[in-house]
Each structure stands twice: as structure tokens, then as C-alpha cells.
């Protein structure tokens, strides 16, 4: 499953005193026929010209974020004795996947103001502005979205899962589930000291269907009639084939 490309990407920020040098086990996730999720190893080092500054320890945050899309969250209520969907809130933008890994408990790593500024944690990544007038508690809908996605491993907050040694080398792994949406997954590495972001590094992981998966998906979107007829042809042939095999077996 894991394709260890071990591609090293080096990027230099001239302005910062401490910068990230990053390595990843893979920069591309290929969705093949037997795709069953993927684990991405992210490792790197902090490059600095001077000695390690004294005071608060250096901390690392790794965030992988899938493509965002609008989502309708519906709530059920008991009406006439049965549970039916009543209120609905459209969340303008919610990432299809979002994993945050930190080197220490989140409160020690990041202040709330810095979180607001860089939009690092999961609630910050969700944008919900227009709740209808009939819904008073639109926040509970956003909470529900986070709860449902967290239960499906689509939202992950892994506090303390980034291993940091000597304030220089760091590594972590992020498990991506099988039900991924295709697209560019923005990968951010933040270095923080006393809760403030001092350096930011950005790269992307490309999640794509390949081979048969890609061919079928493209065909179904671009030539839907041919795709539909092909599905029917397969159905008829296998139906006929099974009948022929069975009647052959019975005769023998």
C-alpha cells in the first residue's frame, strides 16, 4: 500500500531564524482498486543558523487538509411518533478530510489568537455563515458535523503524536481512511514557540484515482450513456453466462 517515494523537498525561508526541512513518505496517494486507506509518514528537521533559542520549547504542528465543499447538516426530531429530518443548516465550507498532529497538548502549542489567524484547528477550518432564521442553535449543527466526521476518522486531532527530538528532528504519521475525496491535500507544518507561529511550511499531497478506478470514473462522468449501456451489457452477459453454465452442469 505504502509507496515509499521518500521524496525530499527542501524549501528555504530567508526571513525566519528557524525553518522546516521536510521529508514525506509520499507526495501522492493513488486510489487503486484495492485501496484501503493510506498512512503518510512526515518527517523533517528544523534548520537554524544560530544556536537553539532559550526560553519556551519549540513545538511542531502538522496539518493535512482535504478539499473543502459545502455540506447540508440535517437534524432529526420526533414528529407523529417517528424520527424525521426537520431543521437543516448549510455549512458553506467544510474540509472533506482534516488531520492535525501536534508535539504537545494543543493548548500548550498554540494560543487562541494564533489559531484564529492561521486557521489551524478543525473548528477554524469550517466556515458557516448563513443559518436560516428558523434555526436558533446553528453551532450545534457545526458541532455535529465535526462529531460525525471525527467518528469516521475524517477529522483527527492527534495531540502529542509528533515526536520531536532535541528541538530539531520531528516525525509523525497520519492515517488517511479509505473514503477519501480526490484532490489536492494541503499539508502545513507550523513551528511555534510560546504559542506563537514562528515559521510555516506548505506542500501538497495529491490524492488521485488511478488505473481502472480512474477510467470508470471518467467514463461515468463524460460518457454517461455509454457507461450505463456498458453496465447493462455486463449485467445481461453475466446473467446469461450463469444460466448457460448451470444448464450445462445439469445436463452432465
Amino acid at each position, binding site marked *: 500500500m505504502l509507496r515509499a517515494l521518500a521524496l525530499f523537498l527542501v524549501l528555504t525561508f530567508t526571513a525566519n531564524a528557524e525553518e522546516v526541512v521536510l521529508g514525506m513518505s509520499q507526495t501522492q496517494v493513488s486510489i487503486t*482498486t484495492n485501496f484501503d486507506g493510506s498512512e503518510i509518514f512526515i518527517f523533517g528537521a528544523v534548520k537554524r543558523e544560530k544556536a537553539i533559542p532559550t526560553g519556551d520549547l519549540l513545538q511542531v504542528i502538522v496539518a493535512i487538509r482535504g478539499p473543502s465543499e459545502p455540506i447540508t447538516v440535517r437534524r432529526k426530531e420526533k414528529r407523529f411518533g417517528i424520527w424525521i*429530518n426537520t431543521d437543516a443548516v448549510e455549512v458553506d465550507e467544510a474540509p472533506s478530510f482534516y488531520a492535525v498532529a501536534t508535539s504537545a497538548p494543543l493548548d500548550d502549542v498554540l494560543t487562541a489568537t494564533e489559531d484564529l489567524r492561521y486557521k489551524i484547528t478543525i473548528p477554524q477550518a469550517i466556515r458557516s455563515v448563513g443559518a436560516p432564521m428558523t434555526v436558533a442553535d446553528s453551532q450545534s449543527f457545526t458541532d455535529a458535523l465535526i*462529531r460525525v466526521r471525527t467518528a469516521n476518522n475524517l477529522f483527527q486531532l492527534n495531540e502529542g503524536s509528533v515526536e520531536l527530538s532535541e528541538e530539531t528532528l520531528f516525525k509523525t504519521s497520519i492515517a488517511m481512511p479509505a473514503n477519501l475525496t480526490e484532490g489536492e491535500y494541503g499539508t502545513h507544518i507550523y513551528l511555534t514557540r510560546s504559542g506563537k507561529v514562528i515559521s510555516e511550511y506548505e506542500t501538497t499531497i495529491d490524492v488521485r484515482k488511478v488505473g481502472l478506478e480512474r477510467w470508470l470514473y471518467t467514463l461515468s462522468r463524460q460518457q*454517461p450513456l455509454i457507461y450505463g*449501456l456498458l*453496465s447493462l451489457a455486463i449485467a445481461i452477459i453475466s*446473467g446469461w453466462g450463469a444460466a448457460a453454465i448451470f444448464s450445462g452442469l445439469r445436463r452432465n
Partner: protein
Amino acid sequence: MQIYLPIAEVSVNAFLLLGLGGIVGILSGMFGVGGGFLMTPLLFFIGIPPAVAVATEANQIVASSFSGVLAHVKRKTVDFRMGTVLLVGGLVGAALGVLVFNYLKAQGQVDLLVKLCYVLFLGVIGALMFVESLNAIRKSKKAIKSPKRKQRGWFHALPFKMRFRTSGLYISVIPPLIVGVCVGVLAAIMGVGGGFIMVPAMIYLLGMPTKVVVGTSLFQIIFVTAFTTLLHATTNYTVDMVLAVLLLVGGVFGAQVGTRIGTKLKAEQLRILLAIMVLAVCGKLAFDLLVMPSELYSLGAAGGH
């Protein structure tokens, strides 16, 4: 073995799908039902998105019905004439059903209405069949031959009479056309072949002999579900070919086995088994509607208003 489904965009166990296809295929062959009313809810349970489950199931029903009907054609238990009349109604009904479905979707209540339809139809039909076949078994045990009921009155006064030789009927085409339309509408809304409604309707309403009912309903189901598959593939892009292939590999073999089992069972036993199964699915769906769900909130694609 996990396998990734390109349209459903989930990863599921291939053997689980093959097994489900096989079991539902056996039932399909035994009872002449497409098996959709069992398979579609089962697919929901294993995490396939409902839109994909409904559309793909239609495609799978084509395969299992086709496989099943061939065995019936050989045994000459298909009334092609009746099947064609039912089919004409079915196609009209399916088109109507899609219109109704899209209207309900715009209201954001399509899930509930689909489930209520299931509970209502499965409950009523299951109960009717259960009582009827129980009575039939009791009568046959007492070895009293009940006189064959013939429906008279308005039903036989209708115009456009047609002779259906295989079924031994000489009736108006209007009742079978109406049955076809109703089944087509329900098939499109509920994402099933509609056999579980058509089979009892043919027996109790049209008075067709049980022997030809299964083959004839399979014949009609092939074309209605093929039409539904094409509609879904071209408008919603929700037919998953990989899922369909896995289900139908199990399904077509199951259907062959089921047809053989079906010929060995008595008609009353067959009907009571089907009735019990219909009631079981109905009970499960009703239970889900009545009991408070563990998660009150659900996520859906935006733009459903």
C-alpha cells in the same frame, strides 16, 4: 479482501459483497422478486451512499432477473404477452416515479418517504400474503379442495379484452396496465424491481396461475430496471460498475440455485416464506423510524433544497 468502489468512493470487503449478492440472488430466483427490497437496505447498512446503492441495485437486478428468466423461458412459465402489457405500464410508471422522486428530493424528505413507502407496502402485502397462504395451507391439510375463485363483476366488464394463453386468462388489458404503472412508480421511488408488489398483484388481482407469475414478473423487471439504470447513469452518475459486478457475480449464481429450489417447494410454502421475509424487513425499517437514532444529525451534499 478490501476493494475500492470508484463511484461510491468507499472501500468494502469484496467477499461480503459476493456473499450478499449470492444470498439475495437465491431469494430472487425462489420468489421471482428482484431482491432489491432486501439488497438496497443491506447496502445502506454496510456504508454505501444511498443514491449509489439505489442506482447500482437496479443494474444488479437486471442481471439476476435475466439469469432467472432464462430458466423460466425453458420451462415455458413466462407469459410474454402479459409481461409486455405490464412492461408498457411499468415504463410509464418509472418515468412518473422519477418525476415524483425529484420533487420529493427538492423537499428534502426523500429518505423518510422512501422508508415510509417500504414500511407501508411491505407491511400490508406481507400481512395479506401471510394470512392468505396460511389459510391455503390449512385447507390443503384438511384435504378439502376449495373451488377456484373467479373474480366477476366490474373487473370483467372492462373493454380492450385480450387473450393471455399462457396464463389461461381472457381479461381486459386495463388492470395489468394499471398494475404495471403502479409497480413502475414504486420501483423508481423505492429503488427496487417491484416484484414483491407485482407478484401478489398478479396472483390476487389478475388471477394469474402462480406457476407463470414468477417468470412473467422477472421478464417485466428486466426492462424496467434496465430503464431505471440508464436514467440514473445519465442523470445522477450514481451507478457503480465495480459494486454492480461484485453483487451480480454472486447474484446470478444465486438466482440459478434459487430457481431450482423454487420448483421443489409448494406454492403455499413459497408464499408464506416470502411473506415472513417481507414482514421482517418491514419490521426492521419501522423499528428504525420509531426508535431514537444514536446520531440525530446527518450529513448530505449541499444543494438539496
